């Protein structure tokens, strides 16, 4: 028995230290790798500006990407209004920033519908496409969405409400949270655009 314990204890210690290494180093490392992949992947959508929207579109200039839908009661209009305020506050510095509003509701959000909806905020491009391609984009950006049936034949969409910021190499930098403090949001944008 003592012989067996002599094996079990070091074996246990080995497992424990392996777990510690995983938690302390490997897991955050892998998570970071995943974060760097945000927005990358195979999806092919269309913008209200007539240009395709694929992972390649994130290259070349900094972007802010938000997922939402036109039948959204509160979060999407608020975020669009916030984006208009950011642009106003940033002035010329914002001219480099591209803003994409990707629908989680391709069933209702046609290009026309989206174009009219985002059109009043300068430079915001609405993005839609086939449902399967939208799902692929959600996966690439790690966006959660779910269709929720309502009465009267209506439905709504639960969805992630972060504005995701990408640098001019198409690399994810950081998110701006829903109704994040204006000064903090502007600081993030100024960092991105500097």
């Amino acid at each position, binding site marked *: 028995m003592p012989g067996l314990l002599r094996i079990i204890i070091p074996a246990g210690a080995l497992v424990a230290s392996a777990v510690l290494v995983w938690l302390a180093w490997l897991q955050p490392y892998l998570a970071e790798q995943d974060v760097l992949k945000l927005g990358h992947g195979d999806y092919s959508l269309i913008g209200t500006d007539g240009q395709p929207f694929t992972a390649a579109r994130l290259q070349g200039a900094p972007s802010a990407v938000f997922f939402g839908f036109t039948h959204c009661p509160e979060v999407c*209009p608020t975020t669009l*209004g*916030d984006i208009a*305020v950011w642009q106003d506050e940033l002035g010329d510095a914002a001219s480099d920033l591209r803003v994409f509003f990707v629908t989680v509701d391709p069933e209702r959000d046609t290009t026309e519908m989206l174009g009219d909806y985002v059109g009043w905020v300068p430079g915001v491009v609405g993005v839609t496409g086939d449902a399967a391609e939208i799902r692929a984009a959600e996966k690439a950006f790690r966006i959660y969405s779910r269709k929720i049936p309502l009465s009267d034949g209506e439905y709504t969409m639960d969805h*992630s409400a972060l504005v995701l910021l990408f640098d001019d190499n198409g690399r994810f930098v950081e998110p701006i949270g829903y109704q994040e403090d*204006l000064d903090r949001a502007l600081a993030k944008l100024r960092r991105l655009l500097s």
Partner: protein
Amino acid sequence: MKNLMKFAALLMFLGAPAMADDKMSMMQEVTVGPLTLSDGFAHATLPNQPVAGGFVTITNTGEAADTLIAVQSDLAGVMQIHEMAMQDDTMVMRELDGGLIVPAGETVTLEPGGLHLMFMQLNGPLIDGEDVTVTVTFQDAGDVELTLPVRKKMHGGHGMSHDGDS
């Protein structure tokens, strides 16, 4: 022309909200049975926004609970009673299937970010400064008409920062 329209649209959001407090029109308080409805308003729609939210505070001074079971407006093909919430970074919204209970002696507040009257299938825009009439129906107290002033939303995080730290 298009740019001019965009500019005008932007002004809807950036225009002088500092004056909103003193100029903000309030809903005429109404009572129905033991219920008092006050501080109602609706959010102005964005250009081409097909839905909108309405809000009101309901106080029940009676001895028994009542339930808000329906709401309607000429401006909306469908109106429902909803609750929305942010769960972590996700927006979730649900219909209150059995209506909204207002317990005896209590006040229930419908406000942005939470409980709301949801305007759907809008026939037209809700315009800042105008009114929208809705009829709400309580199980016991019955119908009552509300005239909700339409107000634009505040933007840029917690209110506007254009006036410094006001």
